[in-house]
Every structure is written in C-alpha cells, then in structure tokens.
C-alpha cells in the first residue's frame, strides 16, 4: 500500500490551527469531511473513537510525529491525511515534546490488515528525517502532496 492510496489530497492541512490534541483531531476529521471522505453525521463519532484510542496511550511517538487512528464504520476504504503544525500541538507524546506532523488514518472496521498496512507505510516513511523536515517546511497542499508522491516512488530507505 502506498501513502497516496489512502491520503486524501483535498484534506491535507499545511497549517493546522489547533494547538491541543482533541482540537487537532477534530480539525483534521472536519477536513476529511469537507473533502467528502467522511459523512458529516459521523464526524463526532470518529473524533471520539480516535480520542478513545489516544486514552490507551498517545500515538505521539516522538520525532514530532503523531499517528492518531481508528477503525470506524463511517468509511468504506482506508482514508487519511496529513496536517502540519508550525507552532506544535500538545499531544502527550511519549518524549514529552510537541507534535508538528500528524498523520491520521481511519479504516473500515472489517479491514484490520489494510489499517495496519496504512500505518506501517506512514511510519516507514516518517522514519526518514529528511521526509519529516521537508514536510514541516512545506507551505501548501500541493507541496505536501508532491512530497508524498515522491516518498511513494522512492521508498525512503530504512
């Protein structure tokens, strides 16, 4: 699975406004809704599902990266997107540092394998320091999309 298989380009957020975890998750889910990937009536439920997962342990996994995620009946295929925060989001990350890159994934309930592959793909690419740096420097949806497509082609070593 490639990043571009599940990243919804219209939902990419180059400048996240939120500074707290729940507000950030909500802003991203609303962006996926605006892009037509999540029904409006399911927004609250998806946000809650992601926050419930966060209660089990933060997906803020260090290096300024978070991978919030859930499986939910609101989607028929894995959908996700990227949000970049200039100021950083307080995400209870395991290293205690703010998060600047949020890669959010929502998958259908009945496809745990796809969900795992999407998260695996995202974590593999995000392990590359250059990919993280370029994402943080990107100023537009187009630039971020270009980086994602480049990452898909090159498969950053790791």
């Amino acid at each position: 699975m490639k990043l571009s298989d599940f990243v919804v380009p219209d939902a990419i957020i180059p400048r996240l406004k939120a500074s707290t975890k729940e507000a950030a998750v909500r802003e991203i889910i609303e962006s996926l809704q605006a892009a037509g990937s999540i029904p409006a009536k399911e927004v609250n439920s998806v946000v809650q599902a992601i926050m419930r997962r966060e209660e089990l342990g933060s997906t803020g996994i260090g290096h300024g990266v978070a991978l919030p995620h859930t499986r939910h009946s609101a989607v028929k295929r894995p959908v996700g997107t990227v949000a970049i925060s200039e100021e950083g989001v307080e995400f209870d990350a395991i290293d205690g540092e703010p998060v600047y890159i949020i890669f959010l994934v929502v998958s259908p309930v009945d496809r745990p394998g796809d969900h795992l592959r999407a998260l695996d793909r995202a974590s593999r690419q995000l392990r590359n320091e250059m990919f993280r740096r370029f994402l943080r420097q990107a100023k537009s949806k187009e630039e971020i999309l270009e980086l994602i497509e480049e990452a898909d082609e090159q498969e950053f070593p790791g």
Partner: protein
Amino acid sequence: MHDPAGLHIRPAAAVAQAAAAYASDVRFCYGGREVDGKSVLDLLTLGAAPGTTVELVVIGADAEEAADHIARVWHEVLGASPGSANDEL
C-alpha cells in the same frame, strides 16, 4: 516475536519507553537490520515476522539491568495474547 502482524504502536511505545529510561545504547537486530530501541518509529519499522527471533543488544554502564527490564517488557507486551493486537493498534 509473537505479534501476528508485526510490532504495533502501543507495544512499540512501551518497549521504547522502557529503553529510554536507561543511559545505555539499546539496539534491536532482525533480518540484518539494526534499529534504535529508544525510537518508536524505528521499532515500528523493524519488520520482524511473527514467531521469529529478534536480538537485543544493550551497551553501556547500566546495560545488564536495562537488558533484563527491556526483554521483560518486550515479552509482556508481545507475548501476552497473540491474535488480539489488531483490535487496538
């Protein structure tokens, strides 16, 4: 390595947090690759298949204690209930 689909975020975070508590350098080796045991992203990409053996290398002043503790956490989070990890990654 008992996890059916590789190392998930929660167990990886638990192992990395256990490793980070020590001054020693902590590395996990598998399939000719070596990753930083204090990095969740590194652990997530270790790519170890279920049922295989992963090598733990700890170097430093507190290495002995660190190796014991990290190995215990690894077994606790990965050996507990194979097959259940897909529910909450």
